[in-house]
C-alpha cells in the first residue's frame, strides 16, 4: 500500500518519546504509568535506554528527528548525565532537525529545579513543569510534594535557563469556584512563558480519586455547567493574554506550540521507548502501533534479554488510522484535512450529520479543513460519536 501524500501543513515528522516510569510519590488523580520504588539503579536503566535506542535506530535511521520528549512518571528524577547520554545516543543514530525540540517534564521541587541547568547543558531546550495549582491547600489535596512557593521558584529558574518553558495546571478541583480559578489563572498567566497546559481534573478509574468517587466520598467537584463555565473563561483569559488554545487543553503564543504534541495530534510518527510507551511508525508503507511492557522491572528484564522492550507491534489499517486522525486532529485548532481523511477512509463520516452539526455551529468546514468550534470542543467526545457513519 502506498501512503496518501501529505498536505503541506500536515505532519510527516518523526519524534522520539522516552518514558521514565518513576515518581517520588503517586498522586491521587494520576493514571499514568508511574511507579514509586525505593531504589532505581540509574546506570542500569541508562544502559537499557541506550540499547533500546540502538535497536530502534536500526529500523528508522533514515528519518530526521524533529522532537525528543522525556515524559513520565517524573523524568526530572533522572540525573542530567543520564539525559545527556540518551541525547548523545540519539544524535549519533539519527539526523537531527536544525530546530530540534527537546522537552523534559519536571516536577517543581527545589531539588529538581537545581538540575535544570544540567539538562540544558545536555541538550534539553524546553521544560514543562507540573505545577498543578498555585495555592498550598489545593496542592496538598492533589497529593503534590511541592508547595506554591517552590512552584513559583521553579518557574523562575526555568525562565532564566530556558527560552521555552511551560507549566501545567489542573483545574475544576474540589470546591473550586469559577471566580477562584479566574484569579489563579490570572496569576499563572503573569508567570507564563510562551506555553501553558490547562487540564480540567479527570477522575480516572483505578486511581485513589477514582476509588473515593466510586465510594461517594469525593464531593464538591464542579458540576457540568460550572465546568463548562470554567472552560470558557479559561479560553477568554488566555486569548486576552495572547496564549490562545491550539488544542483543547494546550495554549501557546503562535509559534510556541509543542512540536511533540503536534506529532500525536496530527498522526505523525514517534518512537515510544520506556515502560508502557506507545509508538506509531511507518515501515515499508505500513503504519504500525507499538506498545512497550508496562511493568518497569519486566521491561528492563526483557530489554536485557532481547534488546527491546516491546510487548506488541501491530499494523494499523488505514481505517483505524483515519479514526485516530479524526479523534486526535479535531482536538487541534487547525482541525483536519478532509482529503487526507478521505484518502485513509472515504466512508468514515456521516456527511448529513456533519452538515447538520456544522449548521448548528459545532463544526466549521473551510475548504479542505474541518475543525471543531469552541462550542464544539466542549462537546467533542459526543460529537465524534455522532459524525461517525
Amino acid at each position: 500500500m502506498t501512503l496518501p501524500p501529505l498536505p503541506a501543513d500536515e505532519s510527516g515528522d518523526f519524534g522520539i518519546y522516552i518514558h521514565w516510569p518513576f515518581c517520588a510519590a503517586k498522586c491521587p488523580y494520576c493514571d499514568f504509568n508511574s511507579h514509586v520504588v525505593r531504589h532505581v539503579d540509574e546506570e542500569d536503566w541508562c544502559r537499557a535506554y541506550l540499547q533500546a535506542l540502538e535497536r530502534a535506530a536500526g529500523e528508522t535511521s533514515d528519518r530526521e528527528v524533529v522532537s525528543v520528549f522525556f515524559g513520565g512518571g517524573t523524568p526530572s528524577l533522572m540525573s542530567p548525565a543520564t539525559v545527556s547520554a540518551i541525547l548523545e545516543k540519539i544524535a549519533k543514530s539519527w539526523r537531527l532537525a536544525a530546530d530540534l525540540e527537546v522537552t523534559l517534564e519536571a516536577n517543581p521541587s527545589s531539588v529538581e529545579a537545581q538540575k535544570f541547568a544540567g539538562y540544558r547543558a545536555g541538550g534539553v531546550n524546553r521544560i514543562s513543569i507540573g505545577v498543578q495549582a498555585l495555592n498550598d491547600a489545593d496542592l496538598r489535596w492533589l497529593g503534590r510534594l511541592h508547595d506554591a512557593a517552590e512552584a513559583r521558584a521553579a518557574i523562575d529558574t526555568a525562565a532564566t535557563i530556558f527560552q521555552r518553558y511551560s507549566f501545567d495546571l489542573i483545574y475544576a478541583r474540589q470546591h473550586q469556584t469559577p471566580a477562584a480559578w479566574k484569579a489563579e489563572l490570572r496569576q499563572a498567566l503573569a508567570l507564563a512563558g510562551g506555553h501553558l497546559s490547562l487540564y480540567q481534573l479527570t477522575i480516572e478509574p483505578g486511581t485513589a480519586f477514582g476509588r473515593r468517587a466510586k465510594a461517594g466520598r469525593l464531593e464538591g467537584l464542579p458540576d457540568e455547567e460550572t465546568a463548562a463555565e470554567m472552560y470558557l473563561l479559561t479560553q477568554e483569559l488566555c486569548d486576552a493574554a495572547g496564549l490562545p488554545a491550539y488544542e483543547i487543553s494546550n495554549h501557546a503564543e503562535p509559534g510556541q506550540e509543542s512540536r511533540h504534541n503536534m506529532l500525536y495530534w496530527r498522526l505523525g510518527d514517534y518512537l515510544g521507548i520506556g515502560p508502557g510507551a506507545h509508538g506509531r511508525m511507518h515501515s515499508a508503507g505500513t503504519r504500525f502501533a507499538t506498545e512497550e511492557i508496562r511493568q518497569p522491572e519486566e521491561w528492563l528484564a526483557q530489554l536485557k534479554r532481547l534488546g527491546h522492550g516491546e510487548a506488541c507491534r501491530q499494523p494499523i489499517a488505514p481505517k483505524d488510522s483515519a479514526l485516530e486522525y479524526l479523534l486526535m486532529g479535531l482536538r487541534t485548532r487547525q482541525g483536519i484535512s478532509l482529503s487526507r481523511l478521505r484518502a485513509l477512509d472515504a466512508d468514515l463520516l456521516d456527511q448529513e450529520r456533519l452538515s447538520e452539526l456544522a449548521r448548528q455551529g459545532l463544526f466549521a468546514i473551510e475548504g479542505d479543513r474541518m475543525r471543531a468550534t469552541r462550542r464544539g470542543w466542549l462537546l467533542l467526545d459526543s460529537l465524534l460519536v455522532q459524525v461517525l457513519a
Partner: protein
Amino acid sequence: MTELDRIRNFSIVAHIDHGKSTLADRLMQATGAVSERELREQMLDSMEIERERGITIKAQTVRLRYTAKDGNAYILNLIDTPGHVDFTYEVSRSMRAVEGSLLVVDATQGVEAQTLANVWQAIEADHEIIPVLNKIDLPAAEPDRVAEEIEEVIGIDATDAIHVSAKTGHGIDELLEAIVERLPAPKGEREAPLKAMLVDSWYDPYLGVVVLFRVIDGVIRKGDRILMMQTGARYTVDRIGVFTPKMEAVEALGPGEIGFLTASIKQVRDTRVGDTITHEKRPTAEPLPGFKPAQPVVFAGLFPVDNNDFEDLREAIEKLALNDASFTYEMESSPALGFGFRCGFLGLLHLEVIRDRLEREFGIELITTAPSVVYHVHLRDGTMVELHNPADMPDPSTIDRIEEPRIKATIMVPDPFLGDVLKLCQDRRGIQLELTYAGNRAMVVYDLPLAEVVFDFYDRLKSVTKGYASFDYQLIGYRPDNIVRMTILVNGEPVDALSVMVHRDRAEQRGRSMVEKLKELIPRHMFKIPIQAAIGGRIIARETIPALRKDVTAKCYGGDITRKKKLLEKQKAGKKKMRQFGKVDIPQSAFINALKMDD
C-alpha cells in the same frame, strides 16, 4: 395393536416446578423405556430453551411397556405437560387424549394456583385423578398436611395419594400399580369407522410434519388414505409409529392407542389441532367436537435493530410459526422503527421464549415494543374493530366505547402476605370475587383487566410475597371501561412505538412514571429534550432531559490514542442500537423498560 383393557392413558399435571418432567424420567426408567446410559434429567424437555430454563413448554408423549403384578403386560401412554400459565392450552388439549391424570403436588409446597386450574380441567375432561405427593425425600416435605390440603381445597379424596420422590425413585413401583389398577382402560370399537383425534403437530426437519393422534374407534394403518374432517384435506399415510420415547414405527394403531403419523403434509398450518382423522373411503358419521384454537392474548411489535435484517427476520418468524400455531404475526411498519412484525403471544413468557429463540437461533437483534392486549373498539356505526396496536387506534370521535379483556385470576398466598396481595389487585383495578382459607393459606379470586396483569403483575406478586404466592388465570370476556390512548412525545414528536392504552384514572400516574423512566433511559443530547405524555392533545405529564454542556477528554497523548479509539468504536456500535426520532436517539432498551410499572 393392543387390547383395550391392557392400555392406560394419562397426563401428568402439576403446578410449575412440582416435578412432572422428573417424574416422567423415573417412569421411563422404571419401565426400561430408556437405559441408564441414555437417561438425562427432565429428558422430555428437549428444546434448548426448555433445558436452559428448566421448564416444559411443549407437551410430550411417551409409550411405556409395563408388566404389572397381575402378570399382564400393559401399554402406558403418558403425556408430560407444561406448568406455566402461558401454556395452559397444551395441558387442556393433552387431557382430551387420555382418561386419567396424575396430579403431582410438591409435598414441600402444597396446592398452588395451577394445581387448582389443572384439577378443574381434569374434572371437566372426566378424568380419573391420582394424587401424587412428590419430593418426599426433602426434609421440608409434609405429605400429610398437603394431603389434607388437597382434600380441603380441591375436595378430592387424598387418602390413597401416592407418596413418591421423583428424584430417588421412591414410590414409583406403587405408582405404576396404581396407574394400572385405578385408571380406567380406554373405550372404543375396533370394527367401527376410523375416528382419531389430532392432538398436536409439529415440523420435523427429516420427516416433515408429524401428527400426534389418539385413536378413538377403528384402526389406522400405513398406506391408508385419510381425511381430516375439518380442513377437508386428504393424505396417504406414509408412516405410523409411537414414541418410546424414540420414534418407533408400527404397522397399525387401534382404539385407545396414541401415536404419530406422517403423510407428506407441507405445513403445520395445514393441520388443525382437535380435528378428526378418518378414512377417506369409510368416514365416521360423528366427527369430534374439535378444540377452540389457542388465542394469542398479548401483542407486541418485533423490529430488527438493523433494518437490513428485516428479510432474515421474516424468514425466522415464518420458521418458528411453522411449529407454533399459537404464535401469530403480521407485517407492521412504524415511522420510527421501520419494518417489522406485530406478533401475538399466549403471554409474556411465550413472548420471551419466541424473542429469545429469534435472537439466539437466528442471530437477529430485536427491538420489542410495548406489549398490548387486544381491545374491542366499538364504533358509532355499530361495527367493532379488534385493536392489536395502539398506533392503529381509530379517530376518537368515531368511537362509541372501548372494551377490554378481563380475566379471572386465582391466587394462593400464605396469610401474612394477603394484605399486600389484595392491595396489588386493588391497585390493578381488580374486583374481588372470592376469598377463602385453607389452613394458613388464603385463596383469592379476582376479576382483573388482562392489561394490568400482562406486563409485570407476576413479578410484582412474587416480590410482595417473597415468592410464596402462586397465580393462575383464565380469560372471562370483554367489558367496557374508560380506556384511552396515551401518546409519548419526545422533543415534540409522537413516538408511535411508545403509545399505550391505559385506563383514564391511571393515565396520569402511568404517564408520569413513563416520562420519568424515559428521562433516565434516553442519553443527554446537545439540546434539551422535553418528554411528554399526552392524551389526545392534552399533556398530562412532562419531564425535560437537560442539554449536554460539556463532554470532552481533557488530556489525550500518545498512550491514550488506542484506548480512546476503542472507546469510540464501542460507542459507535452502541449508536447502532439506537433509533432516531427526529433529532433524538433512543436506545432500544427504552421501549420495554419505559413500561415497567413500579408501584
